């Protein structure tokens, strides 16, 4: 049924439709509305046979999730930013143990400097933790990816992270087609765990593994993600048959047929990029965009194929590999290994919630078309401010705290509200 609702609430409803048996989460912005919504639904008895477990931290949230999933319960949690970092040890364990937990990450920047706004630093910090990572472009896709996510996780016995842009999606009211319980029940079978802690059939999970077998266990984790490269598009097709919508998959191309220049991005910024591309197309620029939905596993072959006919490309990403450049860009470059004639750019954009505007994208994409854009470009960087701070550090030994220096240079006191 079509409804106009908040992204967080839509995701809470979608998770409820998946009949979770254990929900354990610790509130952190911008994820809070999702677990608040689920808490209310559990309390009102709207989710049958489901326990909402209050925990004292994110570390506890993921630890409880590991326990309940190992006991055979369909398990869900959600977090963001520092919360994800705090649970990291358990995040790796959930993956290493092969437990099909589904977790929403309402993407938010990482401190320091403390910042509650959106970017992809949090989930990108966990790109190698062994979880599948899917990125939603819209709230509709966030809803759909959770439904697909449980099926994917349980078929592979591997945890799935559904990443959605904090605030930009979680707090946005937009149109969402909410599936019915019957549709979800028909798509998502009952959870049949591959391993379960059962007093009737005692076993141990989580053996210590020495050098003689550790590589093999790790190889199997990789092999399973390679299986996911097949399963994700297959589930996307099944989903389309059942729900009539094209959601998920590995990548999605837009206006790429005759494109000479390609933009690559993930998450909600794809919408703004598509609008920008439409305007550039009207001016005769042959440009298109490839949206990456599955960041882990990374679809190397599909990205390589999608970019087969372009002469240059630009990765627009909300994350930064400090000391290198882009996180997504490094992966894209690996997909394009050997294509020496292609010119690649990285645009670091939207860090800490800075708005990514069409005006700025037009300027950057024009620089890609002309070839004049720097290889690693920080969108809308205040160069005067950073140069002033660098100059200050050159001349004064005790130059003081970095963030405070930047704010003083930009004549801002604390975070700007408007």
């Amino acid at each position, binding site marked *: 049924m079509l409804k*106009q609702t908040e992204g967080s609430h839509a995701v809470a409803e979608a998770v409820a439709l998946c009949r979770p048996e254990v929900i354990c989460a610790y509130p952190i912005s911008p994820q809070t509305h999702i677990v608040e919504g689920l808490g209310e639904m559990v309390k009102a008895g709207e989710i049958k046979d489901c326990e909402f477990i209050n925990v004292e931290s994110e570390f506890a949230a993921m630890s409880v999730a590991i326990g309940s999933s190992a006991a055979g319960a369909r398990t869900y949690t959600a977090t963001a930013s520092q919360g994800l970092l705090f649970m990291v040890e358990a995040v790796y364990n959930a993956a290493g143990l092969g437990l099909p937990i589904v977790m929403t990450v309402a993407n938010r920047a990482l401190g320091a400097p403390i910042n509650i*706004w959106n970017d992809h630093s949090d989930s990108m910090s966990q790109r190698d933790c062994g979880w599948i990572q899917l990125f939603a472009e819209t709230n509709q896709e966030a809803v759909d990816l959770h439904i697909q996510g449980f099926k994917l996780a349980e078929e592979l016995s591997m945890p799935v992270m559904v990443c959605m842009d904090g605030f930009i999606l979680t707090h946005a009211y937009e149109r969402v087609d909410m599936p019915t319980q019957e549709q979800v029940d028909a798509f998502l079978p009952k959870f049949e765990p591959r391993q379960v802690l059962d007093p009737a059939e005692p076993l141990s999970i989580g053996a210590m593994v020495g050098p003689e077998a550790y590589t093999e266990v790790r190889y199997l984790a990789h092999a399973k993600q390679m299986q996911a490269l097949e399963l994700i598009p297959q589930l996307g097709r099944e989903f389309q048959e059942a729900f009539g919508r094209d959601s998920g998959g590995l990548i999605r191309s837009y206006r790429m047929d005759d494109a000479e220049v390609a933009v690559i991005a993930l998450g909600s910024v794809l919408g*703004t990029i598509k609008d920008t591309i439409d305007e550039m197309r009207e001016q005769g620029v042959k440009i298109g965009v490839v949206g990456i939905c599955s960041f882990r596993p990374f679809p190397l072959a599909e990205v390589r194929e999608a970019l087969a006919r372009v002469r240059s490309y630009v990765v627009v990403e909300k994350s930064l590999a400090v000391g290198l450049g882009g996180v997504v860009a490094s992966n894209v470059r690996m997909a394009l290994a050997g294509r020496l004639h292609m010119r690649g750019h990285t645009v670091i954009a939207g860090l800490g919630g800075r708005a990514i505007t069409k005006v700025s994208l037009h300027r950057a994409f024009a620089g890609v078309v002309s070839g004049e854009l720097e290889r690693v470009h920080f969108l809308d960087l205040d160069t005067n401010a950073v140069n002033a701070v660098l100059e200050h550090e050159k001349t004064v030994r005790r130059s003081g705290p970095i963030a405070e220096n930047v704010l003083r240079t930009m004549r801002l006191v604390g975070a700007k509200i408007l």
Partner: protein
Amino acid sequence: MVTGAEMLSIAAFLEGRHAQAFPSFGSERTGAPVVAYCRIDDKEIRLREPIMAPDALIIQDPTLFHQVDVFAGLMDDGYILVNTSRSFAELGIADVVAGRDARRLCTVPATELAIKHVGRPVPNVPLLGAFAAISGMFSLESVAKAIGEKFSGKVAEGNIAAATEAYETARRATKEPAHA
């Protein structure tokens, strides 16, 4: 404020339009200046940037005129709706509205209407009723339905009464441009 934008998007959705509402993602606290945005279109809305050149401006707290340039980017033929019992001249913004289409300018005492009908100073809903009147973009009936999605019982009834009175007030006011 945020609720107002959300309800505006619901009212538009109920009339078959696409709508997107989102807050200015700040550290929200009571009393801090807050901006919320709403886009309405006949096709899917993909754009995610903040609205920098609005077609309409609904100002809940006119004391902000002296803190923030709330009129920045407003279209020349844009709507201005202010929650106040005073006139534009009395608010000291006669220069801002000079030369603009008087049918698109309106003040409405939304806070007073909310206190009268809801018992609390919550001007969101009456402002929405007034905006329905001056813009004609959606009906008062859709506003009432949107209220029904957010509130229930006495609160919903009070809000519908407040929206209705604001709608009538705004309609009368914009029919008599001298008032603006």
